[in-house]
């Protein structure tokens, strides 16, 4: 047998692959190391100077546009003092104290540090922030607006309330996991106006994409919490409302709506044939009802111009006769007085169910949750005494709720899939 010193082609290939893997691994380590080596910014030694009142007022408005208080206030707690539990698929995150308390809030933060948190998602001490704080949206907020928000938060009464540590599962509770998430999904990005669009559209884009952080709910997330599908609908954790697609006509797209109708919905909470419920009622109550009409018009224009998306509708299958009969009976006993014998609703009071996109959207979670939890439309300047729907959670069985929602989805020209009692049970 002839002896040779030559390396076999297989071994050569293996060593090349090993070298490539080593280079890729080193590059990965370098990128993660870069993500993790964030310098702390200096703490303020004295309280931040009092900003001029115009700047504070502007910041107050922007805080409403971003609904900062919505997450950063606990039920019954001091506004902006943090503590609200926000459930995620990776565990629970507790919102932080934004009041200017030196020990527990932002009292030692500079405007620079606040801007870095908004734009880069990094805390003053250099830690990476959990993207439940939607800095993938806020990265587009301008420095001037960030400074106004900073001035407003600095003007609030200081509340001494220590931040509660997040209760995230391993490995999501590590800085390494956050560095990986950022490497995959996040790049700091100033808002870039689109020169082919007018100023109003650009203002709308800035609000929807930036402070409004609509994508936080209305875009889906992949298994690692990265964005998946731009404003094409998402699912909220606990309770599992669906934030409908803002691009699909079959869900909550407004491409075919007048601007004025979208503005009215965001300002008043109800408009012709539509009213907000669930998490969107909170958004209108806490945030959009307080925005000026010019900003709402800009947002409506931007939403109207979103690229439409068609949602695949499954082939229609009528429910079984006994389920439909039960649904009709439950409807006659509980729903007909308000929503009408033909599901036509009552103008100014109760939404129509016939032709209602929230009833007929492909997934049935929202109409089931509406029946389980009930609720009022938000009280707003235009609708100070809203009508309400009772919660049926303790009054109807899973089979009855499944039947009545199936009845709604398959009556008066509605053609959507049937709901199983099991679907209701999962949402209780």
């Amino acid at each position, binding site marked *: 047998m002839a002896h040779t010193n030559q390396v076999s082609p297989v071994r050569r290939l293996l060593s090349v692959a090993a070298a490539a893997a080593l280079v890729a691994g080193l590059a990965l380590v370098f990128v993660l190391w870069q993500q993790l080596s964030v310098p702390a910014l200096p703490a303020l030694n004295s309280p931040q100077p009092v900003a001029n009142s115009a700047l504070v007022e502007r910041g107050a408005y922007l805080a409403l546009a971003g609904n900062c208080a919505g997450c950063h206030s*606990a*039920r*019954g707690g001091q506004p902006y003092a943090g503590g609200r539990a926000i459930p995620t698929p990776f565990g629970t995150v507790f919102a932080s104290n934004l009041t200017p308390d030196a020990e527990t809030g932002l009292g030692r933060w500079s405007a620079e540090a606040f801007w870095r948190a908004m734009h880069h998602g990094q805390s003053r001490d250099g830690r990476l922030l959990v993207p439940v704080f939607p800095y993938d949206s806020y990265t587009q907020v301008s420095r001037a607006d960030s400074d106004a928000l900073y001035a407003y938060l600095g003007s609030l009464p200081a509340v001494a309330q220590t931040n509660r540590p997040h209760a995230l599962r391993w490995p999501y509770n590590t800085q390494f996991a956050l560095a990986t998430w950022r490497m995959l999904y996040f790049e700091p990005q100033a808002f870039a106006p689109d020169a082919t669009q007018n100023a109003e559209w650009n203002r709308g884009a800035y609000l929807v994409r930036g402070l409004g952080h609509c994508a936080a709910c209305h875009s889906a997330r992949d298994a690692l919490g990265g964005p998946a599908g731009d404003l094409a609908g998402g699912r909220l954790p606990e309770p599992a*409302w*669906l*934030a*409908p697609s803002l691009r699909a*006509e079959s869900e*909550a797209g407004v491409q075919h709506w007048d601007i004025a109708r979208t503005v009215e*919905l965001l300002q008043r909470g109800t408009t012709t*044939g*539509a*009213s*907000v*419920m*669930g*998490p*969107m*009622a*909170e958004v*209108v*109550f806490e945030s959009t009802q307080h925005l000026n009409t010019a900003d709402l018009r800009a947002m409506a224009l931007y939403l109207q111009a979103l690229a439409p998306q068609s949602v695949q509708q499954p082939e229609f299958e009528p429910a079984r006769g006994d389920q439909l009969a039960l649904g009709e009976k439950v409807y006659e006993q509980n729903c007909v*007085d*308000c*929503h*009408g*014998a*033909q*599901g*036509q609703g*009552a*103008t*100014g*009071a109760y*939404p129509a169910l*016939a*032709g*209602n*996109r*929230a009833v007929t959207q492909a997934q049935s979670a929202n109409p089931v949750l*509406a029946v389980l*939890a*009930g*609720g*009022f439309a*938000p*009280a707003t300047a235009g609708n*100070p*005494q*809203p*009508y*309400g*729907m*009772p*919660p049926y*959670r*303790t*009054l109807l069985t899973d089979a009855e709720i499944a039947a009545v929602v199936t009845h709604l989805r398959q009556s*008066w*020209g509605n053609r959507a899939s049937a709901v199983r009692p099991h679907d209701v049970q999962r949402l209780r």
Partner: protein
Amino acid sequence: MWLSATGAHAAEPSAHTVPNNLAQRMMACTLCHGSEGRATASGYFPRIAGKPAGYLYNQLTHFRDGRRQNPGMANLLDHLSDAYLRDIAEHFAAIDLPYPPPQTPRVSPEMHARAEALVRQGDPARKLPACVACHGERLTGMNPAVPGLLGMPRDYLIGQLGGWQTGLRHAHAPDCMGQVAKALSAEDVGALATWLSAQALPANTRPAPSSANPLPLRCGSAVP
């Protein structure tokens, strides 16, 4: 989510109208609390009709702000303004309806004696004022913010006293009723709830007028 009709349907259904008043708006409440706020004697839901408006308003904000724990109530109240909650409280306070007959649980003589003593005299040794000192001689409450105690399900009364004892229910500080409930024993709670739910209503079921004398305990809720 938003509920929205596309109106793309061929046949135009006949118009359906509902009354434009608070009673219609309160259909969300009366399914559980009974027609026009008059709960039945069975079950857990308390009657809200005819309670002092200040008391009802306090409870609405307590649920919304987490001083009382009931996710169903909180969900209903989350997006309502203080002004609307006051309208709602006044609406139910103004409803004057007959009460259903009281529940007829078995009240042993010992239970009866224990309850009646606490209701009429209290227990000075434990710094417990008499129930009637705040809730009125007729136990139908006192304006503006002390509730009546009659015509309520026994289970509901036990639930509330227990809630105060375990810290699930709070009122505005100083929480006088929390202080009272924590001084009660389990036997006291059982006797009081049973006795109260078995009482017939007096002819005049309205809350007593606001008292000129100070209450025996300092109560944050008394000044809504």
